[in-house]
């Protein structure tokens, strides 16, 4: 019952493009923090293990580095806090670094959710939308690479028995070179078979279609509409109003009018939606399971 990650690939790509696109161009700590919160909860619902803590630590380090580096290089801003080696460190540049860090983390966080949700079959589906051959190429390389790795290990272990590693200095290198050259021959033979298997199953006939296991549901429509609409609204806001903070020479908050307020609400809805649907699905599943 993974509702959100089970959406149609098109819905997912539209949604994630909107979220990541908007986060990238907002310098507004309130919006960034909302995005990070939504993204992290969503990611936690997806992975649910210790690797999640590692990820958060990673974000903290990145954030710290960005926050510290900005005041070192940028000396803009009105309010000088102190001097280091005769160069001023300003309040504005510290806050700017902090906001930039938040923005960066929000983008990274959503990218990591994106790569988790967009499994290979979804990516292949999207590419075959552009060109069917492209999808097939990705699909067959996803099959070929693990097969090649496995073969390399097989050849390597056979050759290792023939070429004694300990006897000569260059043996390890020799072993790798020999195994690799044997692997190349194998790959050529292998692909020759694969291509005749393709043509014997009618590859190259006209009107090839492309099959997938995804279903397009009403909810996918809604998500696409919602994602696209909020992105358009965001562009409108940037063009005619302002949602970003201005930092130099002094910090100016965006005007708190109705347009800004509506945008904040929409943003809150968007970034909390994936986590919300996953949690809802989880609760629903627990309830359903308790009836079994």
């Amino acid at each position: 019952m993974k509702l959100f990650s089970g959406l149609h690939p098109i819905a997912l790509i539209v949604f994630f493009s909107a979220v990541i696109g908007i986060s990238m161009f907002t310098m507004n700590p309130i919006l960034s923090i909302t995005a990070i919160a939504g993204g992290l909860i969503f990611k936690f619902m997806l992975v649910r293990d210790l690797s999640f803590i590692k990820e958060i630590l990673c974000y903290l380090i990145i954030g710290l580095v960005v926050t510290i580096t900005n005041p070192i290089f940028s000396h803009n801003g009105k309010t000088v806090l102190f001097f280091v080696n005769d160069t001023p460190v300003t309040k504005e540049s510290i806050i700017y670094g902090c906001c930039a860090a938040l923005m960066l983390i929000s983008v990274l966080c959503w990218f990591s959710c994106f790569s988790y949700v967009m499994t290979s079959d979804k990516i292949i589906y999207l590419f075959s939308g552009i060109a069917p051959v492209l999808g097939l190429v990705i699909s067959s390389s996803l099959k070929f690479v693990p097969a090649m790795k496995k073969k390399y290990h097989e050849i390597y272990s056979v050759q290792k028995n023939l070429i004694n590693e300990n006897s000569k200095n260059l043996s390890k290198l020799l072993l790798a070179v020999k195994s690799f050259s044997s692997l190349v021959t194998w790959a050529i033979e292998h692909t020759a078979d694969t291509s005749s298997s393709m043509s014997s199953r009618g590859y190259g006939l006209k009107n090839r279609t492309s099959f997938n296991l995804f279903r397009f549901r009403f909810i996918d429509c809604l998500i696409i509409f919602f994602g696209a609409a909020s992105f358009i609204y965001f562009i409108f806001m940037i063009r005619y109003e302002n949602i970003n903070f201005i930092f130099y020479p002094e910090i100016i908050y965006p005007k708190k009018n109705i347009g800004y307020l509506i945008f904040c609400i929409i943003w809150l809805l968007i970034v909390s939606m994936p986590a919300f649907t996953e949690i809802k699905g989880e609760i629903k599943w627990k309830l359903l399971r308790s009836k079994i």
Partner: protein
Amino acid sequence: MEIIKIKNLSFTFEGREKAVLNNIDFNIKKGEFAVLYGSSGCGKTTLLRLIKKEMNPEGKISGSILYKGINISKLDRKTSASEIGYVMQNPDSQIITDKVWHEIAFGLESLGHNRDFIRRRTAEISSFFGINSWYRKETYKLSGGQKQLLNLAAVMAISPEVIILDEPVSQLDPFAARTFISMIERLNRELGITVIMAEHNLENVFSIADSLTVIDSGKVIYSGAPVNCAEALSCNSKIIKGLPVYAQLHSMLKFNEPCPLNIREASNMIRKNFSNKIDAIEDKNNKKNFENKIIELKNICFRYEKNGPDILYGLNMSVNKGEIYGIVGGNGSGKSTLLSVITGQNTPYSGKILINGKKIKSFSGIAVLPQNPVTVFTGETIEEDFQWYANYLRMDKSDKRIKNLINDLDLTEILNSHPYDLSGGECQKAAIAKILMKDPDIILLDEPTKGIDAWSKEKLIQILRNLAEGGKTIIIVTHDNEFAAETADRCALLFDREIISQDNTREFFSSNEFYTTCAKSMTRGFYKNAVTLKDIIDLYKANGGTL
């Protein structure tokens, strides 16, 4: 009604003088289960490839192949792709995509079917083949048997009228092979699909084939029902080896009754025609006295991962110098793992390995013949490869040993070939020569009978015997009970992570009731310890029978 008619077909490969196929004539009826039989390199594959337009090899062709009255070369691509399916030998290389469902859908996509149709058809096919539980799996994670079943399913999804199979089970273990063959039998019996299958080992298909066409060096030497083939082929000692044991027996003794098609009929034939006054073989030469233990494993425990299951646990084993030791066991019982532990590629977490009574960290006197012998070679030709390796070992090019090896193993003719162009048996022989170059004391063989024909198997047994006589110790891991019974001095059964029983080969197989050889099953309750065809013949003679 004939679905395929082949008339006067001859074929010569591009740039070769000698024809691979000579005046081939045979017909296949609709719904027939036709088996093409012959040793490797006899032209079976070429013939099959000529029937499938997309797979046609380059070369000069004369005569005609008609599919439903139309010449294959004039068949349009769509008909050829959708009505004739082709399954190749290697389970891995035919798979195109990364997901099982996508693989099944591939042919349907090519033919331009719409989404709903493909959805329904893939569901249908998966249910028929029992693929449901791995429908969404990655193809590279499947076992060999599953892969081959997937290849068949992917071909069947297009719903062809004829399926052509080129030695489809030669790379599978016996259990997976039986599953695969019974699936083909179902397709043939339940759906009326015409099946053309090439095989070099008839054991699996002897009782289900409608017709048998035997090809030897490019010529059809027999075509008809399997029942009569034993008699017709009795003069051809090379071809007869690939028939099941009971058919070979029948062809040797020439009883005035039809050839048995399965063990039950064979058992009846033996009871009717044989006497069992003397019902056991007295073994003199099999009780060789081996004194020196060359390799000893004590309480070996091994697992691949820290939290994984134990693959070997408390395993004890000892092999004597100069003997042939066979390790048999079912699928996934850890046979190959055991070999890797002996070679030192994997280190057990507990237990001792003693070589010549001493604990040695690494022992270079062990050579391994891998399951895929082609992985032994890295050069462009066999000769080049040998030369390089001789150089590496600091051997003289004109060293007598290399020459002797080439002569002993009869490799002169294939020295200039590319390793991938060799047949299974030839490649194996060459690989054996290469691993012998470093003059090992112990030779390990991993599934040596996989993918080789009966004739090469016979030769392999001879080679191994000679090596053992020359003082080498040989350890064989195999699924093939027949082969173990004919080759090994002692056999052991690996089961539940340890060696369960270990005995002289004859005692081992004659005391087993289920996990044993065909000859033993045929003579169960009649002879006490006949485990090979030779034993049955010997007992027949001892009881006064004449050949």
